[in-house]
Protein backbone atom coordinates (compact mmCIF):
# COMPACT_ATOMS: atom_id res chain seq x y z
CA UNK A 1 0.00 0.00 0.00
CA UNK A 2 1.27 3.45 -0.62
CA UNK A 3 0.68 7.07 -0.01
CA UNK A 4 -0.83 9.27 -2.67
CA UNK A 5 1.77 10.67 -4.99
CA UNK A 6 1.57 14.20 -3.59
CA UNK A 7 3.07 13.14 -0.32
CA UNK A 8 6.33 12.26 -1.99
CA UNK A 9 7.10 15.70 -3.35
CA UNK A 10 5.77 17.96 -0.67
CA UNK A 11 8.30 20.69 -1.24
CA UNK A 12 7.87 20.69 -4.97
CA UNK A 13 4.13 20.58 -4.74
CA UNK A 14 3.38 22.67 -1.73
CA UNK A 15 3.03 25.85 -3.79
CA UNK A 16 0.65 24.20 -6.19
CA UNK A 17 -1.28 22.61 -3.37
CA UNK A 18 -1.61 25.85 -1.50
CA UNK A 19 -2.98 27.48 -4.61
CA UNK A 20 -5.48 24.71 -5.23
CA UNK A 21 -5.92 23.57 -1.64
CA UNK A 22 -8.93 21.37 -1.31
CA UNK A 23 -9.21 20.47 -4.93
CA UNK A 24 -6.04 18.45 -4.94
CA UNK A 25 -6.72 14.84 -4.22
CA UNK A 26 -5.15 11.84 -5.79
CA UNK A 27 -6.16 8.22 -5.63
CA UNK A 28 -3.26 6.07 -4.61
CA UNK A 29 -3.21 3.87 -7.65
CA UNK A 30 0.54 3.91 -8.09
CA UNK A 31 1.87 1.49 -5.56
CA UNK A 32 5.61 1.70 -5.01
CA UNK A 33 7.30 2.02 -1.65
CA UNK A 34 6.19 5.42 -0.55
CA UNK A 35 6.91 5.75 3.14
CA UNK A 36 6.45 8.42 5.71
CA UNK A 37 9.80 10.17 5.89
CA UNK A 38 11.28 10.26 9.38
CA UNK A 39 11.67 13.90 10.37
CA UNK A 40 13.67 15.64 13.01
CA UNK A 41 12.57 18.75 14.76
CA UNK A 42 13.31 18.72 18.47
CA UNK A 43 10.43 20.87 19.71
CA UNK A 44 7.83 19.12 17.56
CA UNK A 45 9.12 15.70 18.52
CA UNK A 46 9.03 16.58 22.19
CA UNK A 47 5.85 18.63 22.48
CA UNK A 48 3.61 16.78 20.03
CA UNK A 49 4.41 13.26 21.20
CA UNK A 50 3.39 13.40 24.83
CA UNK A 51 -0.33 12.57 24.61
CA UNK A 52 -0.14 10.65 21.33
CA UNK A 53 2.60 9.83 18.82
CA UNK A 54 3.84 12.81 16.81
CA UNK A 55 1.61 12.57 13.73
CA UNK A 56 3.44 12.85 10.40
CA UNK A 57 3.16 16.41 9.00
CA UNK A 58 2.81 14.94 5.50
CA UNK A 59 -0.66 13.65 6.31
CA UNK A 60 -2.38 17.04 6.57
CA UNK A 61 -2.09 20.23 4.51
CA UNK A 62 -0.74 23.51 5.83
CA UNK A 63 -4.23 25.00 6.32
CA UNK A 64 -5.05 22.18 8.70
CA UNK A 65 -1.86 22.57 10.69
CA UNK A 66 -2.49 26.30 10.99
CA UNK A 67 -5.97 25.66 12.34
CA UNK A 68 -4.73 23.00 14.76
CA UNK A 69 -1.90 25.16 16.06
CA UNK A 70 -4.27 28.10 16.59
CA UNK A 71 -6.52 26.11 18.92
CA UNK A 72 -4.06 24.26 21.13
CA UNK A 73 -5.66 25.50 24.35
CA UNK A 74 -8.77 23.54 23.38
CA UNK A 75 -7.22 20.70 21.48
CA UNK A 76 -9.69 17.81 21.13
CA UNK A 77 -10.96 18.37 24.64
CA UNK A 78 -7.50 18.76 26.18
CA UNK A 79 -5.19 21.65 26.99
CA UNK A 80 -2.12 21.38 24.74
CA UNK A 81 -1.14 25.03 24.85
CA UNK A 82 2.46 26.12 24.23
CA UNK A 83 4.33 29.34 24.68
CA UNK A 84 3.93 31.56 21.58
CA UNK A 85 7.52 31.14 20.46
CA UNK A 86 7.42 27.35 20.48
CA UNK A 87 4.03 27.39 18.84
CA UNK A 88 5.32 29.51 15.96
CA UNK A 89 8.45 27.40 15.63
CA UNK A 90 6.52 24.13 15.43
CA UNK A 91 3.99 25.60 13.00
CA UNK A 92 6.77 26.64 10.63
CA UNK A 93 8.07 23.09 10.66
CA UNK A 94 4.62 21.59 10.07
CA UNK A 95 3.89 23.98 7.19
CA UNK A 96 7.22 23.23 5.54
CA UNK A 97 6.50 19.49 5.61
CA UNK A 98 2.76 19.52 5.07
CA UNK A 99 1.01 17.29 2.54
CA UNK A 100 -2.09 17.68 0.43
CA UNK A 101 -5.73 16.79 0.81
CA UNK A 102 -7.63 17.76 3.90
CA UNK A 103 -10.81 19.80 3.66
CA UNK A 104 -14.24 18.86 4.80
CA UNK A 105 -17.23 19.04 2.46
CA UNK A 106 -18.09 22.42 3.89
CA UNK A 107 -14.67 23.68 2.86
CA UNK A 108 -13.25 24.05 6.36
CA UNK A 109 -9.82 22.62 7.07
CA UNK A 110 -9.93 19.12 8.49
CA UNK A 111 -8.39 18.83 11.92
CA UNK A 112 -8.01 15.07 11.80
CA UNK A 113 -5.79 12.85 9.67
CA UNK A 114 -8.26 10.08 10.44
CA UNK A 115 -11.01 11.99 8.60
CA UNK A 116 -9.07 12.51 5.39
CA UNK A 117 -10.16 10.48 2.41
CA UNK A 118 -6.67 9.07 2.14
CA UNK A 119 -6.82 7.68 5.67
CA UNK A 120 -10.28 6.19 5.36
CA UNK A 121 -9.37 4.60 2.04
CA UNK A 122 -6.03 3.22 3.23
CA UNK A 123 -7.66 1.81 6.36
CA UNK A 124 -10.84 0.34 4.95
CA UNK A 125 -9.55 -2.83 3.33
CA UNK A 126 -8.50 -5.85 5.38
CA UNK A 127 -9.70 -4.36 8.64
CA UNK A 128 -12.77 -5.77 10.41
CA UNK A 129 -15.62 -3.26 10.85
CA UNK A 130 -15.56 -3.32 14.65
CA UNK A 131 -11.82 -2.61 14.74
CA UNK A 132 -12.02 1.06 15.74
CA UNK A 133 -14.15 0.42 18.81
CA UNK A 134 -11.97 -2.32 20.32
CA UNK A 135 -10.70 -1.31 23.77
CA UNK A 136 -7.15 -2.27 22.75
CA UNK A 137 -7.28 0.40 20.04
CA UNK A 138 -9.66 2.96 21.50
CA UNK A 139 -9.38 5.38 18.63
CA UNK A 140 -8.24 5.46 15.01
CA UNK A 141 -5.89 8.23 16.11
CA UNK A 142 -4.06 5.71 18.31
CA UNK A 143 -1.77 4.85 15.39
CA UNK A 144 0.73 2.93 17.48
CA UNK A 145 -1.89 0.42 18.60
CA UNK A 146 -1.27 -1.15 15.16
CA UNK A 147 1.81 0.63 13.78
CA UNK A 148 4.01 -0.48 16.64
CA UNK A 149 6.98 1.64 15.50
CA UNK A 150 4.97 4.79 14.73
CA UNK A 151 7.05 6.62 17.30
CA UNK A 152 9.95 6.28 14.86
CA UNK A 153 7.76 7.29 11.90
CA UNK A 154 7.83 3.69 10.70
CA UNK A 155 4.48 2.67 9.19
CA UNK A 156 5.78 -0.28 7.22
CA UNK A 157 4.16 -3.69 7.10
CA UNK A 158 6.96 -5.26 9.17
CA UNK A 159 5.97 -3.36 12.24
CA UNK A 160 2.21 -3.57 11.71
CA UNK A 161 0.36 -5.70 14.29
CA UNK A 162 -3.40 -5.62 14.58
CA UNK A 163 -4.30 -6.18 18.25
CA UNK A 164 -7.17 -8.47 19.29
Amino acid sequence: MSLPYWSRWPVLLSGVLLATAGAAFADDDDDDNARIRPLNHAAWRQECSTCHIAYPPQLLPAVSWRAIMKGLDQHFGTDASLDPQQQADILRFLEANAGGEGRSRRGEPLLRITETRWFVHEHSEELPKDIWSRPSIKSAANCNACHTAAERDDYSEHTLRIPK
Partner: protein
Amino acid sequence: MRFAFITVLLVLSFSTHAETPADFQKQFAAQAQQENPAFTGFSAEQGQRFYANTHGKEWSCASCHSQNPKAIGQHIATGKTLAPLAPAASPERFTRPDKVEKWFKRNCNEVLGRACTAQEKGDVLSYLLSVR
Protein backbone atom coordinates in the same frame (compact mmCIF):
# COMPACT_ATOMS: atom_id res chain seq x y z
CA MET B 1 36.22 10.15 45.36
CA ARG B 2 32.53 9.35 45.54
CA PHE B 3 31.90 12.70 47.15
CA ALA B 4 33.74 14.50 44.38
CA PHE B 5 31.69 12.62 41.82
CA ILE B 6 28.45 13.66 43.48
CA THR B 7 29.63 17.25 43.64
CA VAL B 8 30.37 17.19 39.93
CA LEU B 9 26.93 15.74 39.28
CA LEU B 10 25.31 18.44 41.37
CA VAL B 11 27.17 21.19 39.57
CA LEU B 12 26.27 19.69 36.23
CA SER B 13 22.65 19.29 37.17
CA PHE B 14 22.29 22.83 38.44
CA SER B 15 23.78 24.19 35.29
CA THR B 16 21.09 22.43 33.23
CA HIS B 17 18.26 23.40 35.60
CA ALA B 18 17.67 19.84 36.69
CA GLU B 19 16.24 19.50 40.15
CA THR B 20 15.19 16.78 42.53
CA PRO B 21 11.68 16.08 43.83
CA ALA B 22 12.86 17.47 47.19
CA ASP B 23 13.64 20.83 45.55
CA PHE B 24 10.11 20.99 44.20
CA GLN B 25 8.74 20.10 47.62
CA LYS B 26 10.61 23.05 49.12
CA GLN B 27 9.32 25.45 46.47
CA PHE B 28 5.74 24.27 46.93
CA ALA B 29 6.07 24.71 50.69
CA ALA B 30 7.30 28.28 50.26
CA GLN B 31 4.42 29.05 47.88
CA ALA B 32 1.87 27.36 50.16
CA GLN B 33 3.08 29.52 53.04
CA GLN B 34 2.43 32.59 50.92
CA GLU B 35 -0.97 31.41 49.73
CA ASN B 36 -2.05 30.47 53.23
CA PRO B 37 -0.32 31.77 56.39
CA ALA B 38 -1.92 28.91 58.36
CA PHE B 39 -0.10 26.33 56.20
CA THR B 40 1.18 23.52 58.40
CA GLY B 41 2.77 21.09 55.92
CA PHE B 42 1.89 18.53 53.30
CA SER B 43 0.01 15.28 53.71
CA ALA B 44 0.57 12.15 51.64
CA GLU B 45 -2.89 10.83 52.60
CA GLN B 46 -4.54 13.98 51.37
CA GLY B 47 -2.41 13.74 48.25
CA GLN B 48 -3.60 10.20 47.66
CA ARG B 49 -7.26 11.25 47.88
CA PHE B 50 -6.56 14.21 45.61
CA TYR B 51 -4.88 11.89 43.10
CA ALA B 52 -7.50 9.13 43.09
CA ASN B 53 -10.71 11.22 43.19
CA THR B 54 -12.43 13.31 40.57
CA HIS B 55 -13.00 17.00 41.25
CA GLY B 56 -16.30 17.90 39.65
CA LYS B 57 -15.15 16.91 36.16
CA GLU B 58 -14.83 13.64 34.34
CA TRP B 59 -11.24 12.61 35.02
CA SER B 60 -8.94 12.12 38.00
CA CYS B 61 -5.15 12.06 37.97
CA ALA B 62 -5.47 8.26 38.10
CA SER B 63 -7.47 8.25 34.83
CA CYS B 64 -4.24 8.73 32.88
CA HIS B 65 -1.51 7.96 35.41
CA SER B 66 -3.09 4.71 36.71
CA GLN B 67 -4.51 4.05 40.21
CA ASN B 68 -1.06 2.83 41.18
CA PRO B 69 1.42 5.63 40.34
CA LYS B 70 4.22 3.07 40.15
CA ALA B 71 2.45 1.39 37.25
CA ILE B 72 2.52 2.44 33.60
CA GLY B 73 -0.36 4.77 32.80
CA GLN B 74 -2.54 5.04 29.73
CA HIS B 75 -3.83 8.38 28.41
CA ILE B 76 -7.58 8.14 28.81
CA ALA B 77 -8.36 9.91 25.53
CA THR B 78 -5.65 8.63 23.21
CA GLY B 79 -4.57 5.30 24.73
CA LYS B 80 -0.89 6.27 24.65
CA THR B 81 1.15 4.62 27.42
CA LEU B 82 2.73 6.94 29.97
CA ALA B 83 5.74 6.22 32.17
CA PRO B 84 4.83 5.82 35.87
CA LEU B 85 4.45 9.12 37.73
CA ALA B 86 6.10 8.00 40.98
CA PRO B 87 9.81 8.95 41.06
CA ALA B 88 10.56 5.52 42.63
CA ALA B 89 9.54 3.96 39.32
CA SER B 90 10.58 6.78 36.92
CA PRO B 91 13.70 8.62 38.14
CA GLU B 92 13.25 11.35 35.52
CA ARG B 93 10.01 12.53 37.15
CA PHE B 94 10.13 15.88 38.99
CA THR B 95 13.57 16.83 37.70
CA ARG B 96 12.65 19.51 35.15
CA PRO B 97 10.91 22.69 36.29
CA ASP B 98 9.55 23.64 32.87
CA LYS B 99 8.03 20.20 32.39
CA VAL B 100 6.55 19.98 35.87
CA GLU B 101 5.05 23.45 35.59
CA LYS B 102 3.59 22.83 32.14
CA TRP B 103 1.88 19.59 33.10
CA PHE B 104 0.50 20.80 36.41
CA LYS B 105 -1.04 23.67 34.46
CA ARG B 106 -2.56 21.43 31.78
CA ASN B 107 -3.62 18.51 33.98
CA CYS B 108 -5.07 20.57 36.82
CA ASN B 109 -7.05 22.46 34.22
CA GLU B 110 -8.38 19.19 32.87
CA VAL B 111 -9.15 17.56 36.20
CA LEU B 112 -10.25 20.56 38.29
CA GLY B 113 -11.04 23.23 35.72
CA ARG B 114 -8.56 25.56 37.46
CA ALA B 115 -4.92 25.76 38.51
CA CYS B 116 -3.81 23.60 41.46
CA THR B 117 -2.87 25.33 44.69
CA ALA B 118 0.65 24.89 46.07
CA GLN B 119 -0.91 22.84 48.89
CA GLU B 120 -2.44 20.44 46.36
CA LYS B 121 0.79 20.12 44.39
CA GLY B 122 2.80 19.48 47.56
CA ASP B 123 0.28 16.93 48.85
CA VAL B 124 0.34 15.03 45.56
CA LEU B 125 4.12 15.06 45.42
CA SER B 126 4.29 13.81 49.05
CA TYR B 127 2.00 10.97 48.06
CA LEU B 128 4.02 10.15 44.94
CA LEU B 129 7.22 10.12 46.98
CA SER B 130 5.62 7.88 49.62
CA VAL B 131 4.99 5.10 47.08
CA ARG B 132 8.10 2.98 47.06
